[in-house]
């Protein structure tokens, strides 16, 4: 039993972390326009280095590792607020591989297919091998070939042009493009039933890993600022009120990170309690991301509220992570309905 990364995992982490710090510094958003980002330029690079196919078997062009490694890299993605389009690629590649579509899988892993992400606007949603339908938010779908869509029943890739009444809306998180759209009953290009693979559980897990990145980064930002910003002749971090706020952030961050790594291993082993653990992880990590992002703004004072501080980007992205594949309210209700895990 060991929750710490082994040396191979640490090497993956170090490589990725160095790459993202160079190619995707948080400050990259300053040079962009009102809405959107240019992270799709990173997909071929990430694909090339194997980061998009960590959990895909090598016969489909992947690396043949597990959910554990995926979680480690998604935490890094969260640290740098990578476009949520990356979820479309990782999970889309898995659908393609499980669906036996070698060509599509390799296209995704090379970063040459763009996959948007659908998030349900209202229940009910229809989801089956023969027909998917409903009302959705579409993230990062403006240039997408396919749209990723999933819930407890299964996971689908749907060709983008099947979505109708598409309408760009002004997003809270202006780094991401956001549309509203309807999907009339449409046969998915690929469908993986939940009984064949717990893709939805994995999606929840990856969103929670991303959220732990937000929680950890905002904690570091706040602590660093509290060490250097002086008021009344001393660093604000020496005042109990600020110190305790930072301590709360650290507790939440450690809780989220530990549960995320634990549940990654449970998902990797396909244990019976995988939903229990992954949902617990999403609850803990989204809560940590939302609260730490808010506290980070507060600790930065008026500066934290400005557009030029990066603090607000983390808060807004935390809300996106909350909504993806079911918000806190939904996850709490689901968690309560599950049996006590045997182990």
């Amino acid at each position, binding site marked *: 039993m060991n929750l710490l990364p082994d040396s191979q995992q640490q090497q993956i982490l170090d490589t990725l972390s160095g790459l993202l710090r160079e190619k995707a510094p948080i400050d990259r958003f300053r040079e962009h326009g009102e809405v959107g980002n240019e992270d799709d330029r990173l997909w071929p690079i990430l694909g090339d280095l194997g980061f998009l196919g960590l959990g895909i078997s090598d016969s489909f062009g992947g690396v043949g590792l597990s959910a554990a490694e995926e979680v480690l890299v998604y935490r890094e993605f969260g640290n740098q607020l990578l476009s949520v389009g990356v979820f479309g690629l990782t999970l889309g590649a898995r659908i393609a591989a499980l669906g036996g579509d070698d060509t599509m899988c390799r296209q995704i892993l090379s970063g040459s297919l763009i996959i948007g992400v659908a998030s349900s606007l209202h229940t009910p949603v229809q989801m089956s091998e023969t027909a998917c339908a409903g009302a959705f938010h579409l993230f990062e779908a403006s240039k997408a070939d396919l749209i990723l869509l999933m819930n407890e029943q299964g996971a689908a890739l749907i060709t983008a042009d099947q979505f109708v009444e598409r309408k760009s809306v002004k997003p809270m998180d*202006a780094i991401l493009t956001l549309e509203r759209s309807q999907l009339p009953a449409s046969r998915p290009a690929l469908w993986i039933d939940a009984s064949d693979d717990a893709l939805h559980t994995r999606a929840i897990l990856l969103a929670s890993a991303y959220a732990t990145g937000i929680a950890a980064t905002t904690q570091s930002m706040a602590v660093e600022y509290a060490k250097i910003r002086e008021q*009344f002749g001393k660093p604000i971090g020496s005042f109990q009120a600020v110190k305790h706020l930072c301590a709360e952030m650290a507790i939440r961050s450690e809780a989220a990170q530990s549960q995320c790594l634990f549940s990654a291993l449970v998902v990797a082993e396909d244990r019976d309690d995988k939903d229990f653990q992954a949902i617990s992880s999403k609850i803990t990590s989204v809560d940590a991301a939302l609260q730490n992002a808010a506290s980070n703004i507060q600790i930065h*004072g*008026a500066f934290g509220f*400005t*557009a030029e501080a990066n603090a607000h980007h983390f*808060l807004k992205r935390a*809300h996106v992570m909350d*909504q993806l594949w079911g918000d806190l309210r939904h996850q709490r209700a689901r968690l309560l309905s599950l049996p006590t895990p045997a182990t």
Partner: protein
Amino acid sequence: MDLHFSAEDQQFREMARDWLRDNIPAGRRPHHGEEMRTFDTAWQKTQFDAGWAGISWPTEYGGLGLDLTRQLIWYEEYARAGAPDNHLCFVGLNHAGPTIVSHGDEHQKRKYLKPVLSGESIWCQGFSEPNSGSDLASLSTRAEIDGDELVITGSKIWTSHGHLSDMQELLVRTDPDAPKHKGISWVIFDMKVAGLELRPINIMTAPNLPHFVQCFYDEARIPLANVVGGLNNGWKIAMSTLGFERGTAQIKDQIRYAHLVEEMITRAKKRFGSENLHTDEIGSRLAQLRADMAAARAMTYMTVSRAKAGNPGAESSLMRAMVGQVQQKVRRLALDIIGPEALENPDEDDWVYFYLRTFSTTIAAGTSQIQRNIIGERVLGLPK
């Protein structure tokens, strides 16, 4: 103990209600720029022209000279009518104006007060500096006396709407050798004088539109006569200015949030079905907020009662803190009620804008930590 307003108060209430119903501006208040300024100044002018501006200001300077009860009634009717907040007039009406009323000389009063009430003159605040936030008294913007002028050099930051303002209430250091609280002056600064440069600062609610400005003063000159309340006396004056903000201005917020909570309840009942909401976690939080808002209103009445008894006291900071707490709860709950739509920030719906905006309100009004220090020390008498 008595819940009744006098017949005169009641008559005032009805007049206010009638007038507001017929006169509140149509259309949505713009959140930014000149459009916002046009809207706010026009609405203030409408109130002034009809004789409703400056309820508690002295009549000789354009006000109505009425007591705090009438002010309360006006705010209640204002909120009930759904009248828009004219935020741009806030500093003039609630900080700078009352300061000049209390501490200004006759010339200053004659010159500056009426344009505030009439909406002709928009004021902003120049208190915080890059290195002086909650530790306001450590400010370092200098003003040197040169004949009958002050020559100002330094920088102020977090000046809301500075680029849309005419005047500024400005704290400057006029005696660098005195202890930090004793060398500060409160001055009236004209935003049109030479030697002032503004750097716009965008905020998270609208990353592409300026909200704050940073002010850079490079030997900007204003008359020495613009010092209010005496040279080097500015710290005391500023504290009383903040006192104004901590007093009656909060009443309006309290009433506004009470309405907002009722709107949230309506919206939640619509989304979840009222029959499902009784013991729902969102229902329970809404019910608690409803009780909180009822209590906040009662605290307002208590504050007004104490003021009428000639004993305003530091207890009004309790009401203010309560409203701040409620705001935090409202912030978190609002998005939970909206659900997936929370990820949109449409111009025609204020909820997400409001959510993001509260992050600044909490900071601007002095952090909750500072507020709790004040309650602990001034209300409860705990040691520093």
